[in-house]
């Protein structure tokens, strides 16, 4: 076990968090808080795996996962946007719903055996870069490369394009956006849907690339919630989201790998000789999420940054908002 192997696997594991975080950033930028990530990721992972199993085509699995999670996200969309209900409870409900649906439809899938997974590639040239090459560009899943492309693309979209401006306007000051002729509700539905598709992609990345298979709730084991924490840490910015996601991915891998070797940095590895200490290692991603939230919240306070101003608030035309 060496650092490069861990970081290599960490980037793959971080890609899962990255997709979910990027999708949630879009939904929240439009003003809709969707706490249903965990449920949408689960149903994405389940439907990707079962589609790939049935058809033998992992790409079809990815497509179905994105569509199913996108459709599920519209349950939250209707309740939050049309019915103007509390988005926290609605998001929780979506998590229950998604979890229940994936458990019911995924019954027996965990014993289903192997499926054909998404392909892995090494990028010629780039993989020869010392240190970074073997970590980032060698023998990685196609999803990892997709993640690399999505981060700058989404940054450009949010900050440099007209639709991106509309997205921010709808989340910051929907009344003004409405007055300018931007269709607030329609855009919010759209971005909730796209956020759902990203969550589905994230789930598919788990079950068809990073840790293949369907293990009921353990498939995601709270990563959807970690992603929601990362959105706050990232201050709704795709580049910071990438940094957070990959760091968490590496942490998750390290926890898995640190218990293997008998020596660690030349010393007796305490985690190998006391396997039960592993339970404390397992707490780390969750504890770090809380720490990262403390950092994010303090920074937001200092820089007077913050959530999109209309986040979580329904927009009712004619009512005094904000």
């Amino acid at each position: 076990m060496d650092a490069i192997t861990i970081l290599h696997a960490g980037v793959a594991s971080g890609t899962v968090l990255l997709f979910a975080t990027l999708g949630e950033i879009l939904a929240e930028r439009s003003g809709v808080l969707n706490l249903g990530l965990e449920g949408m990721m689960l149903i994405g992972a389940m439907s990707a795996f079962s589609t790939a199993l049935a058809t033998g085509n992992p790409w079809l699995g990815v497509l179905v996962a994105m569509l199913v999670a996108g459709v599920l996200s519209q349950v939250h969309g209707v309740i939050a946007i049309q019915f103007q209900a509390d988005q926290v409870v609605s998001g929780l409900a979506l998590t229950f719903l998604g979890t229940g649906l994936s458990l019911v439809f995924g019954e027996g899938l965990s014993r289903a055996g192997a499926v054909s997974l998404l392909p892995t590639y090494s990028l010629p040239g780039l993989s020869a870069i010392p240190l970074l090459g073997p970590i980032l560009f060698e023998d990685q899943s196609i999803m990892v490369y997709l993640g690399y492309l999505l981060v700058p693309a989404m940054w450009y979209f949010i900050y440099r394009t007209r639709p991106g401006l509309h997205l921010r306007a709808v989340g910051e000051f929907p009344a003004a956006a409405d007055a300018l002729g931007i269709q607030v509700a329609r855009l919010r539905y759209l971005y909730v849907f796209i956020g759902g598709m990203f969550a589905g992609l994230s789930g598919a990345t788990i079950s068809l690339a990073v840790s293949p298979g369907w293990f009921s709730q353990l498939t995601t084991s709270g990563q959807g919630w970690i992603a929601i924490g990362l959105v706050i840490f990232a201050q709704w910015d795709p580049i910071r989201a990438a940094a957070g996601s990959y760091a968490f991915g590496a942490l998750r891998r390290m926890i898995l790998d640190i218990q293997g070797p008998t020596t660690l940095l030349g010393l007796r590895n305490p985690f190998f000789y006391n396997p039960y200490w592993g339970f404390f290692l397992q707490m780390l991603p969750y504890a770090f999420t809380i720490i990262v939230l403390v950092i994010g919240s303090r920074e937001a306070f200092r820089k007077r940054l913050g959530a999109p101003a209309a986040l979580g608030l329904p927009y009712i035309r004619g009512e005094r908002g904000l």
Partner: protein
Amino acid sequence: MTSAASEPRRFRSPWQLRLEARLEQPAWLNLAVSLGAVAVALVIGGIILAVVGGDPLRAYGFMLRASFGNPGVLSDTLTKATPLILVSLAAVVAFRMRLWNIGAEGQFFMGAFGASAVVLTPLLPEGTSAWITLPAMALAGIAAGAVWGFIPGWLKARFGVNEIISTLMMNYIAVSWNNFFIFAVWSEGGFQMSPQFPREAWLPRLTDLGASVPAFRGLTTHLGLAFGVVAAGLVAWILYRSRWGYEIRLLGDNPRAGRYAGISITRNTILVLMLSGGLAGLAGMSEISGVVHRLQGAISPGYGFTGIIIAWLAKLNPLIVVPVSVIFGALILAGREIQPSGLPMLIQGIILVCLIASDFLLRYRPRLVRRAVEA
């Protein structure tokens, strides 16, 4: 400029669905809408069950019989409802101040841990009577749950950390914490469970009275149910009769007005989350001492999360929590034997979705009106 006359004429229905804001909500409407939402949820759940190849009517009939069919299963239903009442109250208290404590599951586990620690560590001398052991366990459970509520409360009050995520993360930490003790410290003979508690650490059950009241023989309902009912009354008193409850409700409805009135948000955030955590911790103690009689891994089929749904269905009314918990206790009890195993979770999810969606009907009245004839 567009002129209406130049638009092509389309067919328009003479009727139009219009939503009118309700000025007042009749009392019966609340109940009718909630029951309607649950009914719709059961129908949707049935359709999904039929899609995966089940027979919804048989499944629902089975669930009804398996939870209310005879005194024995009815008692089991009440046993399942006991932790639900307490965790739902935990949700009610926090939600009333609009603090989203979704960490009742973790606080439940910590409560179980705290109560077990009293029994499994040489804290009390051997043979201490139940009159001391049980209150000590309850206090330890409440304290451990309250600590698990204090941490996110303090983080929110001090650093503005979003309590939804922190309480949820604390759930995973609590499970790992318990696992460490189950596997490494209190493991009995290498099994992933602690040794069984001595009898004085068991909450009395109805069956313990079987010698004098034959009808109670074999009934599992335990004293924890009384904890739940008393706690419901206590929480109702706190929320609606005490000064503290007034502060909680005011901060929940209008934090700005609360601040102007000189009510401390910091103090109440921490205290409310501690009370909430303590109630969930007591649920953990009651379950471990009344049902399981040892610390082990699978002590909760997601009680903490079901509590959120119950709290919402009860419209955050602590007294209504009790009967609603009984219904969900039945769902969980019957759900253990039903295939596919995710079904109870799914039905709970659908119920919550339908409930939130139905709130709309409380605020708006849908009305079919005749479209005005254009001149």
